[in-house]
């Protein structure tokens, strides 16, 4: 029963995540940016824009200038999440890619760092008056969801082991449309349910900041308005009158 439930859940969650993001990204892509609005310090070339975006995405450059506490917790959470995700690739590859093997020990401790980062960010929502004011219930629930995923995962590693060989067989089976039994384990059920939930709400929530940053005109435009004429299709129409 549980095997079929989780199989259906993960097929649905994956479909919603991929289709939902594709629709959103296509929408961002198609919507024109009619005016040049890069924010200083703006690079003057496309190469410069790529570097700026890399610094923004990998190092959170603007956030670093803005608030060191948010930056520290934010980079701790996102960096750790990346390592944890890479570590989890071993459940989806056979044979496991060699570099995924190297990541394993780092990914293990990253689980703790990820949860620590989340609680840091969450704490600010209670302790800093300004951030308390702007926080909505969904801001708290999002942190609860991520913390729940992290804690249930750590629980299975350090408290109540599950049969990870069987878990891997289940996911490889899903990828090959060959259903394999999922071990019966409450911690695993919680972990997988929360992950599927995260995948489902991703395209409908503030998690859209992940694709959104790449489409932010203040960050992705080159500062060259005098050298090149920049004209959106709907703006060009005005010149025909």
């Amino acid at each position, binding site marked *: 029963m549980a095997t079929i439930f989780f199989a259906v859940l993960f097929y649905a969650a994956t479909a919603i995540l991929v289709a939902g993001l594709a629709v959103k990204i296509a929408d961002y892509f198609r919507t024109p940016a009619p005016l040049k609005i890069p924010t200083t310090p703006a690079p003057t070339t496309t190469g410069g824009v790529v570097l700026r975006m890399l610094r923004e995405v990998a190092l959170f450059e603007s956030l670093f200038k803005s608030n060191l506490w948010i930056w520290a917790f934010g980079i701790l959470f996102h960096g750790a999440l990346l390592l944890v995700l890479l570590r989890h690739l071993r459940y989806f590859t056979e044979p496991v890619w060699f570099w995924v093997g190297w990541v394993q020990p780092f990914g293990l401790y990253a689980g703790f760092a990820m949860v620590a980062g989340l609680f840091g960010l969450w704490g600010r929502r209670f302790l800093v008056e*300004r951030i308390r004011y702007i926080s909505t219930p969904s801001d708290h629930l999002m942190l609860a969801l991520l913390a729940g995923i992290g804690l249930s995962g750590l629980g299975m590693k350090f408290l109540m082991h599950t049969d990870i060989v069987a878990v891997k067989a289940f996911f490889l089976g899903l990828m090959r449309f060959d259903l394999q039994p999922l071990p019966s384990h409450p911690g695993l059920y919680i972990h997988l349910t929360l992950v599927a939930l995260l995948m489902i709400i991703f395209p409908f929530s503030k998690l859209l900041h992940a694709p959104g940053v790449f489409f932010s005109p203040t960050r992705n435009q080159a500062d060259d308005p005098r050298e090149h004429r920049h004209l959106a299709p709907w703006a060009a129409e005005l010149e025909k009158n």
Partner: protein
Amino acid sequence: MAAAEFTTPELKEYAEIPALQPGAMAESKPYVASDKMNEALGFPGELVPDWEQKAVARLGELLKKYRSLKVYLDACVHCGACTDKCHYFLGTGDPKNMPVARQDLLRGVYRRHFTLAGKLFPKLVGATELTREVLDDWFKYYHQCSECRRCSVFCPYGIDTAEITMAGREILDSVGYGQKYSNEIIGKVHKIGNNLGLPGPALEDTLQGVEEDVKEDTGVDVRYPLDVKGAEVLLVTPSADFFAEPHIDSLIGYGKVFHAAGISWTLSSKASEAGNFGMFIGNYEQLRKIALRIREAALELGVKRIVVGECGHAWRVAYSFWNTLTGIGAGANDPFAVQLQSQLDQRYKQPAHICELTWDLIQRGALKFDKEANDHRIVTFHDSCNVARASRMGDTPGGQFEIPRSIIKAVANKYVEMAPGTTHEATFCCGGGGGILTDELLELRVKGALPRMDALNQVVERHGVNFMATICAICKAQFTKVLPYYKFNRGMVGGVHQLVSTAIRLGSND
């Protein structure tokens, strides 16, 4: 009508983040535009009966036209990085003046009407219906933003509250709930040719008066020409430069630079205004229509170069938008823009800032100065928000910071920088930008100036600074008004070309 009474904040050694004071600025709002002002711009005369549907529909249209709006309404994670970055929040403590909270006024309605989560679980994600209360909050708090973009510098996704404010104002205009100050001024630009409503003959008289004053002052015949066909340079400058103090001293400076360098130039009665309030109200059609006056004047007068005077938002519009809107620039391959671009001398940047022109001449040795003439001044420089964060000068990033400072250092001996974090791209707005330089918003303007006044006070106390140079007509007007509230002399603000004017040698350069 006198503005309500209020207390000027106290200056502090170190800037502090205020505790939240909900509702502190809930009474601050500009006058509503009259039916005549609205209708002149093609907006409904007064609030339409079905404003709720109309406003939501307009938001839907804007979401299809502006990627910035769409991405920024989705991407915010409420991290709080922007919450202590807005000068209006720092000056008032009103939580709705935190950039994220200002955005959320629109974001709530966006979520309710345009997102699945907001339709299914409005309470959970902070989605709200567009009630009359929310509409009034838009009118109040989108007129407590100067579109200065400081928040955008610090946002991890570059979310620019100016884009949200512009959308908010555009929606308000589309339902007949526009702001008097901006809409009245735009009407004047179309009817008379400039924001201050100075007609052609009066402008001619004024310029003649300026010529006489300069002659009396220096003994040199410096010309301030109007509508001269075939001049090399068309100078487009904010109309405040024609008569307001201290603005006119910079106009005098521009004329002296052209005179000393032997460049033929002209002003235009048709394009007697560099300012473009179409940007402030977020209306692309108005922005474009106002900018097209410059194109027409340039084509009529047959000029080779277009130069913009000291005005912050005008330079943003000129530098960042003119090529898009009117073809003033380079690199076009469409017939509309090629017509103008083939007339312009492409050896020079088009358009150019007056500071670029002056600095270029200084570097080539074409101008000579008596720096001692400015020795009674200890100068600091206030970076104007639109120049600092939304435009550039020269060939390299950061030119908008280096060029004005280099000019000041070339014409004056005593220069002091204000504290880091209050200059360059982190500069604080003067408190009067973005279409709120109007007396009924005086409390907001005085309180919004607090972060700049703190920084100024520091260099006044430590270094005896007595002159704050800036290159923006709104900054000049705003500081002239608010400096006395902080016990400073209103005369300590002035233009960079006012300093140039004081030190420049006219006549023989040898």
